[in-house]
């Protein structure tokens, strides 16, 4: 198929290493090094004064066991919310990305710019606006209530759906843009050919468009799902006492309870689980590559 030809040319063996070097060095300093310090903390025991504890590195895996068992509910909940939000993002983003890529013509860049514009306003201001729109006695909630579409609490705010809605809204551009970038690359003549070949739009979609858009779907899903799992701020503002996510737990452990080993262990548990999930997902999508 045109467009995916790989090079058969003998390429410089050093080139890729040179290209990844800057990023790797940068991340080695500003990501790996702090992460190693975090790992040490997670395996340490705390003693001494409460606010200036001494951490003794002790290969204490107990923190991990505690992290995993005590907060299993929040971990599962976070994965659930993030997965739902990712699916919603995909469903909402696809039509928009598709239209921008193929039907927008000269307005392509304008609409792309429009899409990103809401994010120049900080998260908090956007959330306050949403809370005004979705307030308990606002017209949105009343309308949904009349149709019987409200969650069990009888309101939209401070429910799990509000948190999922917040995650979806705040991460959706990370689905729209990669999808667009991937779709825009598809040769429109391919689309025409596929429409001629297949009897319905649906098949043309599943057999031609979707496979070609897969890199975008993959990138978008990861860029939404991964940060969403660790998110805490949506649950803070839009959630209730029953919607605590693992991000909130880590925040509390770190800032209020100040149990640094547990907070660090929890962070690593979270990171490993996400990584495992991501590896499974990419395999399921039929690709071996992550990035």
């Amino acid at each position, binding site marked *: 198929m045109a467009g995916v030809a790989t090079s058969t040319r003998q390429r410089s063996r050093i080139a890729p290493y040179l290209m990844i070097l*800057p990023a790797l060095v940068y991340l080695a300093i500003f990501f790996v090094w702090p992460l190693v310090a975090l790992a040490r903390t997670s395996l340490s025991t705390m003693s001494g*004064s*409460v*606010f*200036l504890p001494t951490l003794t590195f002790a290969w204490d895996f107990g923190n991990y066991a505690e992290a995993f068992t005590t907060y299993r509910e929040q971990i599962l909940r976070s994965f659930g919310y993030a997965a739902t939000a990712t699916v919603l993002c995909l469903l909402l983003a696809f039509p928009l990305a598709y239209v921008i890529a193929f039907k927008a013509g000269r307005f392509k*860049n304008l609409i792309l710019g429009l899409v990103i514009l809401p994010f120049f306003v900080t998260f908090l201001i956007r959330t*306050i606006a949403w*809370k*005004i729109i979705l*307030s*308990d*006695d606002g017209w949105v909630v009343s309308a949904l209530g009349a149709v019987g579409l409200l969650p069990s*609490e*009888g*309101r939209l*705010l*401070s429910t799990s759906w509000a948190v999922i809605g917040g995650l979806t809204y705040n991460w959706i551009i990370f689905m729209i843009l990669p999808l667009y970038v991937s779709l825009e690359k598809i040769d429109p003549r391919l689309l025409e050919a596929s429409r001629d070949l297949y009897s319905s739009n649906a098949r043309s979609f599943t057999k031609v468009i979707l496979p070609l858009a897969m890199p975008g779907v993959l990138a978008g899903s990861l860029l939404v799902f991964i940060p969403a799992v660790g998110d805490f701020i949506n649950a803070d*503002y839009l*959630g*209730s*006492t*029953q919607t*605590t996510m693992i991000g*909130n*737990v880590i*925040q*509390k*452990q*770190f*800032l*209020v*309870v*100040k*149990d640094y080993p547990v907070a660090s262990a929890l962070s690593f548990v979270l990171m490993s689980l996400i990584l495992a999930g991501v590896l499974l997902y990419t395999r399921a999508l039929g690709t071996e590559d992550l990035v």
Partner: protein
Amino acid sequence: MPNEIDRQLIARLAANRTSRRRFIGGSAAAAAALVLGPSFLAACGSDSSSQDAGGGETDESTLRVSNWPLYMADGFIAAFQAATGLTVDYKEDFNDNEQWFAKVKEPLSRKHDIGADLVIPTEFMGARLRGLGWLNEISDAGVPNRKNLRPDLIDSPVDPGRKYLAPYMSGMVGIAYNKAATGREIRSIDDLWDPEFRGRVSLFSDAQDGLGMIMLSQGNNPEDPKMPAVQQAIDLVAEQKEKGQIRRFTGNDYADDLAAGNIAIAQAYSGDIVQLQADNPDLEFVVPEAGGTSFLDTMVIPYTTRNQKGAEAWINYIYDRPNYAKLVVYTQFVPVLSDMTDELAKLDPEVANNPLINPSQETLDNIYTWPALTDEQTQEINTAYAAVTGG
């Protein structure tokens, strides 16, 4: 020291990025910044690491103040600068006590400057800093206006002799309710648990502010906080949470929900409600029948300060009644100075007569204050409560 990258570089980088040629130019410039950066940074680094804590550098002409946002009257700083000749670098970057502590803990423990000569944390945080030995004493000579303080604040169990924590602004911690949402007057903590308000009640996530009034309603007194008593309050909260009575645990962010009526009854700070009432007359604030607690924000001087004299001059200026009145009228919290009625009346009679800003002695008698807790006590209480609020 200029802590900024060359302006031209920024301009070029920010310019039209969709043009290939421009992009190349931009990336070359960026690469240059990356190469130059570290050497530039090393220069910065060596500078600050050679700094010493208070005792080393002093800067008598500038005062750096770190305060909560919008906790300062218009024109106040300008007037202070004119009166003292100091230049004030006023930063509104104090956001949340624990978050701030997590940020400054490392620098302060290493005696690194934290960018402020005077900070205004809440009293418990100030007490913690004092316990860690990170504060400078506020000299009597530097603050003669100290005598203007309210009699109940002149001394403090948390800070004997008021040597380290200078009160800035106080307030009452009680309950606020939306009359339109509740349909009736609210008087006591028991109203919080009324099934009629299921899912429309919010409590504080901070242990002291949240539990104080609940303990009082159970017949215990936070002024003598034994763990079983505290635990009793925590258990009640846990029980109500399981029932779905509590919608959220909040910090200061209950205001929009309360104004909208999403929350019918909230644990609240008096000053916030005064502000909200301006636009929403349905809101009321009461000190619960069994009693409420108070909060106090205090001015402290970190031991890494570079202008001890300037900081003391600031405190002294604030303790002058006419000056302080301006602050009270703007922030609308409860003043820490005594006999403010006259000065307040001069600026705004409504403020002088507002019981939430200028409470009667009767109200004040029903307000209690947490004592100085040991680090272990604080930790125990915080951890126990965090388990309920969702940590």
